[in-house]
């Protein structure tokens, strides 16, 4: 089996090396990366991996952030040019962690009638910045938010069977196409997610959010829009608003809102992971429950709206038909 990871990056030099190293060590055979106007050393890191032969680099200098178009192109290239069996569409701040076995073991046993497997975000919070890399500082996980405007909201990403016709909608939360049926209630992969890692990275990431507005879908994702708006009004205080200091940590641990999770740190330091305990399973189940709840609240109405639009288009064509036959 060949597993290809796609990656869209922009100024992710603080994390992209660890992200590539982690996944290449854990079953990803090849990476296709789209570098969108990076200027912080990210491009050089990607070029080095390209020279080493396990990454194909695509540079995009368009001011617009055309995420769906770029990820779809990479996912199709994975099928047509790189012989992929499965494709994992990731962001640089995501580390795909199989709960049991390896990524490839999970994909091997995925029932053939299904083509899309979900991973669930597990969000890690910003700790006060010091000189240590993010994975040594950020060992505190928080419960997901229901509010989609939070950068820590409950969310999924998907792995999918390789297909030359796949369409990956914005956000990489789905993969659409023939043979890509979603297995809805199985979440065998956790995605350890580090969206806010330092004040500088926070300002850089959300300061570039305008690139979404110029893109083909001009709406900003809600969580991006919410943080970008705060950036305008409370730039100086924004970092401290996200950082969890020692006092907040103590309170959060007691309240059960925060938990110590050193898995990525330990893995990057070469330590072997232990299987999850029953308490971890129950905690994970609660987060899946929240996701499935919001999934229904948000995704079902969205799908219904899309169906309505397609029906309306058909109905318009039907109404127009007499004019065609009469001409």
């Amino acid at each position, binding site marked *: 089996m060949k597993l290809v990871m796609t990656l869209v990056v922009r100024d992710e030099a603080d994390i992209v090396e660890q992200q590539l190293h982690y996944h290449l060590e854990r079953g990803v055979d090849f990476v296709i990366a789209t570098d969108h106007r990076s200027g912080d050393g990210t491009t050089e890191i990607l070029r080095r991996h390209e020279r080493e032969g396990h990454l194909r680099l695509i540079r995009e200098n368009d001011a617009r952030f055309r995420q769906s178009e770029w990820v779809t192109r990479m996912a199709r290239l994975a099928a047509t040019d790189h012989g992929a069996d499965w494709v994992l569409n990731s962001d640089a701040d995501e580390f795909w962690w199989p709960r049991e076995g390896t990524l490839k073991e999970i994909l091997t046993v*995925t029932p053939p009638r299904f083509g899309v497997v979900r991973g669930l975000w597990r969000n890690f919070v910003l700790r006060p910045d010091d000189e240590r890399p993010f994975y040594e500082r950020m060992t505190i996980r928080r419960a997901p938010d229901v509010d989609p405007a939070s950068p820590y909201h409950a969310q999924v990403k998907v792995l999918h069977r390789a297909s030359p016709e796949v369409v990956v909608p914005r956000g990489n939360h789905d993969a659409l196409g023939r043979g890509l049926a979603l297995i809805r*209630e199985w979440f065998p992969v956790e995605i350890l997610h580090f969206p806010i890692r330092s004040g500088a990275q926070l300002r850089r990431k959300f300061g570039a959010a305008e690139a979404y507005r110029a893109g083909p879908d001009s709406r900003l994702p809600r969580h991006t829009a919410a943080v970008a708006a705060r950036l305008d009004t409370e730039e100086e205080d924004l970092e401290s608003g996200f950082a969890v200091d020692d006092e907040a940590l103590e309170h959060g641990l007691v309240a059960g809102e925060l938990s110590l999770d050193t898995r990525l740190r330990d893995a990057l330091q070469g330590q072997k992971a232990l*299987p999850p305990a029953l308490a971890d399973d129950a905690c994970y189940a609660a987060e*899946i429950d929240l996701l499935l709840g919001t999934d229904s609240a948000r995704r079902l109405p969205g799908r*219904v709206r899309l*169906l309505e639009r397609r029906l309306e288009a058909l109905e318009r064509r039907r109404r127009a038909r007499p004019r065609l036959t009469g001409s």
Partner: protein
Amino acid sequence: MRIALRLPTSGPDELIDAQRRFHLAAGADIAEAGFDGEADWTLEVEEGEFLWPHGGSLKNVLGSIEAPYGAVCALVRHLVASEADGPLVERAIYRLAPQAPGRGSGPERKLLPRAGGHGRAPRGWYPVEALRLATRASPLSSGQIDRALAEGALVLDTRLRDALRAAASGEPLTFPRPSVAEDAGLALDVAVRGEADVLAAHERLDELEGRLAMVESSLPARLERRLRALVHRRR
């Protein structure tokens, strides 16, 4: 923590006895027909049903359920017996695959509630299997079994038989976490037979989207688009 167990009032004595022995060994405290008001969880098992926890005893698993939830879902899986000689629990070592012919539609989950508790179970989590022996169905011949195994309609599953043998010889029962492959099998059962509410709505939407895509790509629709383009060019 105490788990009260209500055993069925009907069925062969040897089967009820096997259920009692199994559930006591699996972590239930009480195996009485009456309700125990002191219990944290009250489990009611049907004729031929065995609650199989994942990753620990029933006490471990139910003890891990977070406080806001008032129940947990067990995924029902059916065991069928061969017509060989011997007690039913020794012969019932074949599990019906979710797509096996003859299985009806409808939810295949069993709600295990906290005693006197209110509140729902977490969606999408099945830390317990309810293994149900087909007590009233005719046993299968070896030819039928071979055919069904080859077609994928049956899967060999000796867990219950092995556990009952272990319990009979006084060995402690162990309930390991499902392997990746077993986990995928459970996911398939859930996907094919699982939750009736939200999942069914999603699946109806899947079907509607598929039907709509067929209409959109149908021959008359494509012909109409081509004709329209032709008329437009001639104008």
